[in-house]
């Protein structure tokens, strides 16, 4: 009986792994195709489509744009999130629960609707479509995330640590720089990297709010119009690689916070 369960489990798990990896394997494999269609039979390996991607200035500048928007908007989101989390965790403010609810509210609304709202507003206000507009949208989706992560990590123990610093003569800004930020560093990094990956991958807001200069997911979308193309496979594989690097960095910061 136990043996049957084990064999069945193994078979099931392998089937699910196969399902999960099938598209990724096909993507990466046919990015190495030497002919013009990413469909069987496999004719590679060849790096010609990677060369094509790297020499395509639209794609490379979109990649730079994506990294810029992701890093700047994440920095803004984590800064605003940290300051507000600190304010709410440390001080008694009237209507605190309501205001905290307001900050986390965008988490429950889909990106499409957030993007639509900004599009309508910017359209009325005469704000042109730009990377800046998309970046503003990315802060809207990542600020509640950073706030929630950092706020949840501000325990009562840290209140006394900050009090001790004040008691020993530290002015408020030194409490912040020398005590609060270092103690909260793991949560701050977690918020930052998670925001980076979300912004890096975000499509619909960038699609609605940018026009000529755009981010990589939107540029890849534009590539799709030409149908199946190994160049799309190559750029997709590159994006995958960058995401994995971000995730590994995130894992490392999570692991490093173990000794408390």
């Amino acid at each position, binding site marked *: 009986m136990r043996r049957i369960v084990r064999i069945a489990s193994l078979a099931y798990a392998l089937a699910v792994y196969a399902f999960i990896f099938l598209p990724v394997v096909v993507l990466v494999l046919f990015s190495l195709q030497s002919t013009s269609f990413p469909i069987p039979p496999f004719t590679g390996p060849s790096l010609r489509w990677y060369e094509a991607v790297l020499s395509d200035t639209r794609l490379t500048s979109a990649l730079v744009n994506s990294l810029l928007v992701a890093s700047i908007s994440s920095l803004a989101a984590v800064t605003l999130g940290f300051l507000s989390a600190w304010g709410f965790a440390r001080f008694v403010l009237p209507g605190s629960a309501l205001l905290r609810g307001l900050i986390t509210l965008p988490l429950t609304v889909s990106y499409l609707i957030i993007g639509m709202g900004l599009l309508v507003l910017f359209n009325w206000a005469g704000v042109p479509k730009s990377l800046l507009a998309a970046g503003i949208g990315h802060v809207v989706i990542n600020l509640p995330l950073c706030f929630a992560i950092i706020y949840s990590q501000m325990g009562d*123990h840290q209140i006394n640590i900050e009090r001790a*610093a004040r*008691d*020993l003569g530290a002015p408020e800004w030194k409490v912040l720089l020398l005590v609060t930020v270092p103690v909260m560093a793991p949560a701050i990094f977690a918020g930052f990297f998670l925001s980076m990956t979300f912004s890096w991958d975000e499509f619909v807001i960038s699609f609605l709010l940018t026009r000529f200069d755009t981010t990589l997911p939107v540029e890849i979308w534009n590539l799709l119009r030409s149908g199946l193309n190994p160049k799309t496979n190559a750029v997709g594989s590159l994006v995958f690689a960058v995401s994995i690097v971000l995730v590994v960095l995130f894992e490392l910061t999570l692991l490093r916070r173990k000794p408390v």
Partner: protein
Amino acid sequence: MSTPLVDIRNVSHRFGQLAVLKNVSLRIEPGSYTILLGPSGSGKTTLLSILGGFVNPSEGKVLIRGEDCTSMPPARRPTTTVFQDYALFPHMSVGANVGFGLRMQGVDSATRAAKAREALALVGLASTFDKKPHQLSGGQRQRVALARALVIEPAVLLLDEPLGALDLKLRRQMQDELKAIQKRVGTAFIHVTHDQEEAMALADHCVVMNDGRIEDEGAPERVYARPATRFSATFMGESTILAGNVSGNGNGHMTITTEIGPISLPGTSSVGTGIALAIRPEHIVLGEGRSDTPLGTAKVSDVVFQGSFKRVLAASNQNPGLQFIAKAPASAVIQPGDTVGVSCNAGDIIQLAG
């Protein structure tokens, strides 16, 4: 009387509707070891927070060295606090923790390190300078917190249940050490606890608090031997309490009618005054004794062997609602169900306002 080091004048405090301190006044002398003793909710921790500057009192004033500190922030007061959870900075080494206060004062790093080492040596932890707080045991962290607070030479050191997180054996050991360190540095310590043994072992001056008020204060020997109120008679050590009324006076003695019969005590008081009598367990004599005041007979309900003595609970036969708490020698032959005579010496009876 000279100016006291700390002068708390008519301090009251409310959290919302809840009054946690009710018109408290207290003076603290330089170099003394003061214990604020009371059950949870008595207001002792709030009083300490007011001294430390973490809470501004609703009413009243706090003067330290004659200066009004009532609404001065913690950093500018000549006080430092040792927190119950120690509040060591987890990302800094032990040395950096101890040197933090000096760094805030702008002291250069060489002097800082030297002073921090000195302070760590004072608490017996010279070798931990480069360690991180999480590498230390609970008792060691406690001592680092003490060194960190002492190194900036405060006029008053505030300790919030400093031994609360330690196990019993370590607590007794740290008690002795705290007392020794306080004598060595000569700083006034104000220490909050709910442990009366800790209070008796450490205090020069013991302040018993209950329900936002000071019930009693003075040398612990005095507070124990002659408690001022019924609360301090039962909180600072145990007591059997007899309620009664003065029923007659004569020859320097008064007769008090109690629930277990009349008792004669030295002193005079007007007839009809309500009075409460407290008797410490070690003063209650069970069986045939040579004491001068009989207290009737009682039925033993419980005997607990405590090592050096036996703690005996016995219900009075005259008034089964009254329970005697007595200390019998470890060798005493006594069992639940026994009926015993109870007595004591009139001189050991503590008179309290009824």
